[in-house]
């Protein structure tokens, strides 16, 4: 049995009604809980950035990325282990985006 870990799945997509539900369905259908979810405008104009955190195996995390990228409006998706470094980077990024948005 492969080890389960917390993974961050990072998704860049077009802004499209219904896409969040389609992506979250990809988790739901496989019985995977989404531990946290954020949605921001990304650093690229017109492109949205979703981040999902979920506990799963490396194999499944990679499969999720594949299925998410199959959604027509998804530009790119990535997954990486949610370790301290990536979490910190993530927090900084989210903070920055939030500030930009509020300005």
């Amino acid at each position, binding site marked *: 049995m492969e080890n389960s870990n917390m993974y961050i799945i990072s998704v860049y*997509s077009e802004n499209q009604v*219904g896409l969040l*539900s389609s992506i979250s369905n990809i988790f739901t*259908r496989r019985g995977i809980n989404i531990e946290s979810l954020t949605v921001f405008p990304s650093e690229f104009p017109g492109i949205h950035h979703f981040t999902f955190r979920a506990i799963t195996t490396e194999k499944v995390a990679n499969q999720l990325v*594949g299925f998410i990228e199959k959604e027509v409006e998804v*530009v790119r998706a990535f997954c990486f282990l949610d370790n301290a470094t990536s979490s910190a980077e993530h927090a900084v990024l989210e903070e920055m985006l939030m500030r930009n948005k509020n300005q």
Partner: protein
Amino acid sequence: MGQRLTGAEILLESLIAEGVDTVFGYPGGSIITVYDKMYHYSDRLRHVLVRHEQGAIHAAQGYARATGRPGVVIVTSGPGATNVITGVADAMVDSTPVIVITGQVGNAMLGTDAFQETDVVGMTGPIDKWTFQIRQAEDVATAVAKAFHIASTGRPGPVVLDFTRDAQVGLADFEYHPCTHIRSYSLPAPADEAAIEAAAQLIDEAERPFVVYGQGVVLSHAEEQLKAFLKKGGIPAASTMLGLSALPSDFPYYVGMTGMHGNIASNMMTQQCDVLIAIGMRFSDRVTGNPSTYAPRAKVIHIDVDRTEIGKIIPVDVGILGDAAEVLERLTKRIRFSFHDEWAALARRYDRVETERVTTPETAPGEGPVNMGEVVAKVAELSERRAVIVTDVGQNQLMGARYSRFCQSRSFISSGGLGTMGFGLPAAIGAKIGVPEREVCAFVGDGGIQMTLQEFGTIMQEGTPVKVVLLNNNWLGNVRQWQELFYGKRYSQTKMLNPDYSLIAQAYGIRYRCVESRADLEPALREMLAAKEPFLLDVHVREEGMVYPMVPGGRRMDEILLNKDEWYRDGE
């Protein structure tokens, strides 16, 4: 600057611009504007009025599978939309290009529980390739163009356009530009050179190479490339159920169908091969049995256009992401001319056993009630293998797949991944409308035919000359088979009391003949195949008919039941 038209007209003009000449549909309150405009398009767009929206989408699927062009469905909101859902899911898993246009209430009424309003975007999103809600007339042409592009490229699939009333009645300038690029949706790129090189090396080193191909070969028009590849490599090949007819049944390297009810040769050779080349197929559990015991000696090369399929079920040694035709062409150039005569000859040994133990008793029993396989084999013989075979789901499908013979591609249409009973009759209508010059013969059971029986009305109104062979055994035969084998013969809710099909045929004005004995079979089939009009042939077959060989679910593919208490033993 284009012409100023309503959204409804733009939809119809856009369909015509995409080369659509036939749509399958059913009118209703939220799509009435489109139907009103369609009134003036009858010379350019044929509308086939079905009797239930599920019939419309299965007909569109049959049309798409027979022609290779997307099928188009137009239905209303609410129940119209929910009635097509089964077909959308079916088309998704079987990679069938279908464009579904569902009416929707006005923009201001969205989310208010208005009459016949339902969340189509939310419902179809998880089961289709793309969903889009059109809320203004300006977006119609672009949405249709994107829909055709998405449905028919890459791994094809269904697309749903939820067409609100505002978008239908609003005005916009019409100019049509086919879609060729979407920034977040990439078309298959040329396959990776290193992967092709690695695959060629594995194939050249193989002693017992084996190909299992699926519908991807048909979808990518790779039939000729596959033949060239097999000939050069001297590689025996098996088809999945949906891949059937991509190679002619008498192609020298073809060893039969793989899977739960596949041919002994293909399943035994899968387990013995040292290199397995999977082409345009997805390792369904009906193909692999227990995946951890599948092809245990093989290095696996998987060619598919869908990246998520590669390694999803069976781990691969070489994955090649790309279009089958392109990959096979390049791979054929790379591999050496080879012969594996001794290995390939194994197939004939297995075939002899299968013929003697399974096929002959099924197709030429000599006495007793008519067998299902006998009917299918007779149709193959009398139609000279030229018919498009459409099946429903169940024993009729497995027999149709096992005993039909083909001489051209796109000749086998069946609901594979979803296994939708009721698929056969409407799919046959769509196929016949798509390829009117070909004979279209549907094998259906007495269970499945009653799920979409009302489509006889469509046949009556359109005069579609499909030949429907009802394999009537008064049971839900496939479930009955499982109950007999694995559930202690507890026949829970599988015995069916049938209506008098002669009266049903009469009610719809469809020619009918009943076959109750072997002596009647051939003359009746000849009469049916000679008929120029729709025909229902009601064949009363053996009630306790079983489909063998069978690899019970979750087993190894070389654990094959020849009959209810005998396993196949290799070396016999």
